[in-house]
């Protein structure tokens, strides 16, 4: 199998889905001639032409509102918002329409669009280019919120997101776009949405993360084993909403000690929902309070201080050891 970066894997998913289904159309700012500012749509306009790879004017609400109409007609628009920090312009189109038209029309119309956007810190970017606000989308009924963590699942999840009959917000951890390569099969591969996976088995405690936080979390698990002889189970959420809590609950029941890791600010962040689910379904198995290892409740600092804001290996290890000490 060829080894690919996440950018190449996402590009493969787009190309293969476009080859497979002519209702798949890619649109957004600079997705065509430029191939996307991160090159995720590189080469698509050459292969599929301007009618299927559409450079749009600079207007996020326009891109998503137009995609809603395309999707209602029966196309499968995959629109790119250049950075998740600019996806807020589209909230009314997503909340008021994309996530509701199935309900409003009682199933007559569906909105199978995908809104892709790079999110998160770690790339020394300008203001608004490092945020994690997945909570906004995760709280909307009728919408799905997906975040991959590596080239292979990025490809397989994007394929599923494109084929999904409902609207999907697909946040891509830009810090991982070129951070490492994985073997990605050439032949079609899809992964079900709303399924988390166990990224590493363990019995002593549970670490729950997603997206870019999976790497420090897995490194922390490794360090915990090596330095402290602790076996951490690591769960990769993959889909935030609708959240499947089966694995989370099972693991929490097994270990009784859980930490949630995300870059989003702590208050009202995804970690809160995970804690609430575990309390609902695994309360009597919890030995200690679930820990939230997260970004702080501030604007993520510009890059000179960014690493202090983002959860890293030391913080995760530290939290894990406190869970075990308690």
């Amino acid at each position, binding site marked *: 199998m060829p080894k690919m970066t996440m950018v190449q894997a996402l590009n493969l998913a787009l190309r293969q889905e476009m080859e497979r289904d002519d209702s798949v159309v890619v649109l957004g700012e600079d997705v065509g001639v430029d191939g996307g500012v991160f090159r995720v749509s590189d080469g698509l306009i050459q292969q599929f032409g301007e009618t299927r790879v559409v450079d*749009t004017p600079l207007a996020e609400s326009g891109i998503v509102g*137009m995609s809603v*109409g395309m999707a209602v*007609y029966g196309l499968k628009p995959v629109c790119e918002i250049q950075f998740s920090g600019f996806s807020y312009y589209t909230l*009314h189109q997503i909340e008021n329409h994309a996530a509701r038209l199935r309900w*409003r029309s009682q199933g007559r*119309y569906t909105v199978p669009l995908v809104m892709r956007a790079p999110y998160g810190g770690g790339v020394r970017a300008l203001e608004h280019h490092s945020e994690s606000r997945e909570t906004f989308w995760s709280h909307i009924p009728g919408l799905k919120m997906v975040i991959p963590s590596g080239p292979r699942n990025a490809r397989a999840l994007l394929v599923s997101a494109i084929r999904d009959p409902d609207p999907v917000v697909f946040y891509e951890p830009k810090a991982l776009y070129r951070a490492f390569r994985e073997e990605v099969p050439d032949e079609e591969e899809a992964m079900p949405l*709303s399924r988390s996976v166990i990224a590493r088995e363990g019995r002593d405690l549970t670490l729950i993360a997603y997206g870019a936080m999976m790497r420090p979390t897995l490194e922390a698990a490794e360090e915990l084993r090596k330095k402290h002889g602790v076996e951490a189970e690591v769960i990769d959420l993959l889909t935030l909403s609708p959240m499947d809590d089966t694995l989370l609950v099972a693991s929490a029941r097994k270990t009784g000690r859980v930490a949630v890791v995300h870059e989003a600010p702590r208050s009202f962040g995804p970690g809160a929902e995970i804690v609430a689910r575990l309390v609902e379904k695994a309360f009597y198995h919890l030995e200690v309070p679930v820990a939230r290892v997260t970004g702080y409740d501030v604007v993520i600092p510009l890059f000179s201080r960014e690493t202090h804001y983002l959860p890293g290996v030391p913080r995760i290890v530290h939290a894990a050891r406190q869970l075990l000490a308690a």
Partner: protein
Amino acid sequence: MPKTPIELPDAIEFLSILDEHGELDRSLEPSIAEESLLRLHHTMLLARRFDERLLSLQRQGRIGTFPPIAGQEAAHLGAVAMLRPSDWVVPAFREMAADIWRGRPLESIIVYNNGFNEAGRIPDDRNDMPISIPVGSQILHAVGIAWAIRYRGQDDVAMTFFGDGATSQGDFHEALNFAGVFQVPAVFVCQNNQWAISIPRAKQTRSQTLAQKALAYGIAGIQVDGNDLLAVYAAADEAVKRARSGAGATLIECVTYRMAVHTTADDPKRYRTDTEVEEWRRKDPIPRFQAYLTDKGLLTADAIAAEESAVQAEIQAAVDRAEEEMKRLGDPLLMFEHAYAEMPEYLKEQKEEFIRLLAETTEEQQNA
């Protein structure tokens, strides 16, 4: 070179064919089949009387809040009159006459206005969108639909409606700009009814006309007398032909008037004078169109009277059917349906929780 004037390609014109005194400009009279003219008259009358009936039902507490259309029948009915079933209508929420023309059963309007979403479902044989309440947002959907129509090589068009207030929204701007850039087969019909709730047209924008906003997008724009069904028809027909032929989108400003309340929650006395309403009443599109049909020998006073009672019977039958239908509705479990193609696990759990709760709490109430 010094200051040089820039020549603007598209000029903006005002179109009126049948003025408020019934004067007809024959040179511009659109050719509409007699049978269609009569159906248009029937629909206008039906929509007007049904609107009145809905108002009284609302006052009796028999339906919820709704936005009356009285005065705007020509402005939206005239625009859809030449559309095919396969064309797409993307409404705001004040286009009931067009909705009826396109085949919406009256009873479904009553049932929907009683808070039953299932009545909002569009019949499968019509390419229309449900009403869209967030002002301006639907204009973009029409652009996407029109884009998809062209992508699929069809010659259908997408016609969308919105009010004068909607032209202030960013989505209006983005939609018309996209339409210009992508040259999609879209027709943008603005029902300028002079008011956005309490905000008069003059406070909505400083531009002299709404039609001239088309100049900002390099698309065609025209202002028409929106209470003149013939003018609206002619302008829409031209725009639809332009769209079908691939020549791009058009913005049509229909100058009309909201004769009734904004919605049944509104009190216009707070912001406009009766004299203003009276002046516009004289421009009422229905008598004007009736005068035209009478001159044409297609209508007589008796025929109109007969129409009136036919229409009332139709409405009464619909009210009765609606009350019947509503007896069968109301299963609360429906609120969990149509959230997703497949119900997520956690939502299934919530639905089961709700079922248990419903049983236990009703039990508790009985015991109490």
